[in-house]
């Protein structure tokens, strides 16, 4: 189920946001998921995000997972309070979705993949 773009970063290594500014096609979704360690909520969020992207954003997304236990200094930059937090860094504007991402409809609304009234 895992998307090629997303599974390799769960260790939190190489997550400096400024590094990967390669050319991305329009409509590409750059997502960053902040988690804290290997807690059930973290694991659930990672699984839910991968599943959701495979269905709704096939081939046009990248996922970066940041473990705040290992990189606490990154929490402030994205104004992370709650864990897990999913941040949509592209396309603008920045969007935040907190929670395990269990409610797919709300995630889709949050990522503006679906309008509220649909």
């Amino acid at each position, binding site marked *: 189920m895992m998307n090629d773009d997303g599974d390799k970063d769960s260790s939190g290594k190489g997550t400096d946001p400024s590094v990967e500014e390669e050319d991305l096609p329009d409509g590409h979704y750059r997502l960053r998921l902040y988690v*804290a360690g290997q807690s059930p909520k973290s694991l659930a969020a990672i699984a839910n995000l991968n599943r959701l992207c495979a269905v709704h954003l096939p081939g046009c997304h990248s996922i970066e997972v940041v473990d*705040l236990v290992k990189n606490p200094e990154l929490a402030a930059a994205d104004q992370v309070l*709650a864990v897990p937090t999913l941040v949509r860094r592209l396309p603008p504007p920045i*969007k935040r979705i907190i929670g395990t991402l*269990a409610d797919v409809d709300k995630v889709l609304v949050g990522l503006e993949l679906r309008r509220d009234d649909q």
Partner: protein
Amino acid sequence: MTSAKSGDGAPHLPKAPTGISGLDAITYGGLPAGRPTLIAGPAGAGKSLFGLTFLVNGANLYGEPGVLISFEEQARDIAANSASLGYDLPGLIDSDKLVIDYVRVERSEIEESGEYDLEGLFVRLGFAIDKVGAKRIVLDTLEALFSGLGDGPILRAELRRLFEWLKERDVTAVITAEKGDDDRLTRHGIEEYISDCVISLDNRVEDQITTRRLRVLKYRGSAHGTNEYPFLIDEGGISVLPITSAGLQHSISNVVVPSGIKGIDAMLGVGGYYCGSSVLVSGTSGTGKTIFAASFVDAACKRGERVIFFSFEESKEQIIRNTRSVGIDLEAHVDAGLLCIEAARPSLFGLEMHLTLMNRTIERMNPSVVVIDPISALRGPVTEVHAMLLRMVDLLKVKSITALFTNLTGLAASDATDHGLSSLMDTWIGLHHLEANGERNNVLYVLKARGMSHSNQIREYQITNSGVDLIEAYVGPAGVLTGTARQAQEAIERDEALQLRQDADRRRREFTAKQAMIERQILEMRAALSEDQLELERINEQIEGRERRIEADRLAMATRRGAAE
């Protein structure tokens, strides 16, 4: 971290001093160390400044680095706003004594989907605390989380966990919270999670005058002052006035300080006021209350003592000019740094604020004499004025400062304010105008003087260009005579005295003349007597001569007869 004495003598609770002297006095040493304290109050009450002061003093005075988690203001705004208070936040940050983390919680940017926790916040706090080894942390205003994340069971559970976590980290935390409606302490009831220490700030407007007040609602494991204490925010930061920490435990003194007016010293049995006592000079308008006060000030400054003159009616320059006209040079004392004249309109602040301001000036200057001129200018309900003055008197007595209060009274001899004040004062001098014979004359008398005998006389006084002069009293058949009546009476007395003196002189002259005459007579009589004696001796000699001649004749006749026979 200093552990201060707790009032009940129980095991000492470690405390983190705030560096706000009044607050540390009320709480017997500061906030509970290693535990969270809630500071609640309405907008603009000074909550954030309290938190910031706690951190800055911790870093500067007590060697405890701190963390400020701000939910409302950016770090650069906080630094800019507090620069006017003399807080160098960038400097503290650079020297690793302070971390400011701005936490932005914007409802519109956050979508919720599924379960979450606030581990992100914990991570940020932990990171900031570890960065400087913080012992103090301020969360300002934590309740912003409620607007950002919604008031749900997750947030409440996480807050509970947060306070436990802060205790485990052994940081002294200050959490600010907005006052709720309907007399609720905080809008979202977070006081239920913080039970160690709760401080409420208030900012009330009464009669268009704002007064900030502080109250320690709760302090688990420690005694604390329970009243509402006024506090002040200005360029000197926060000042809290712990009023009732004064009380009646002050030590007393037998040292006497002269009143600056010779006549009054003479009326008071010990020759002046007791050091550390409270003196009230009350009188109708124009009786020279301020000049009496200035005389006292002048005398104290000439002894080299420091004095603060609080004026509520006249400006500093006005006082200096007006007292110079009676021969008192206050300006010289001001220049010498002995005298501080603080002039403020009473309506500028509330009573509490005046008290707090005066307290701060007194603490800074440490004077031995304080004058408040006049207390009648302080407006407000009688009970509040009375309470404020009581605190003022207590505060001055604790510091052994001799205080002189002036009070403007109505034309009636004494009014309600006077009665209320009387019990506070140790010495009370009343000044009055007496109207008689088409003139007004000034008289004074000592109503009370605790701990000393004092004159019961009503004395007339005059304000001359060399100060206040008391004039010897004349008590006539119809009472005290003053002014021209006294002068007339004195003139009569002077005439009588002159007459008597002239009589005496005449009699003395007559006596001298008589004495001389008699002595002359004695001399004449002596002369006559001695002539009589001479005559007598001459007669005696004649008699003796005759007898010798008769004897000689008889002898010659006998010789002649013998030859014939």
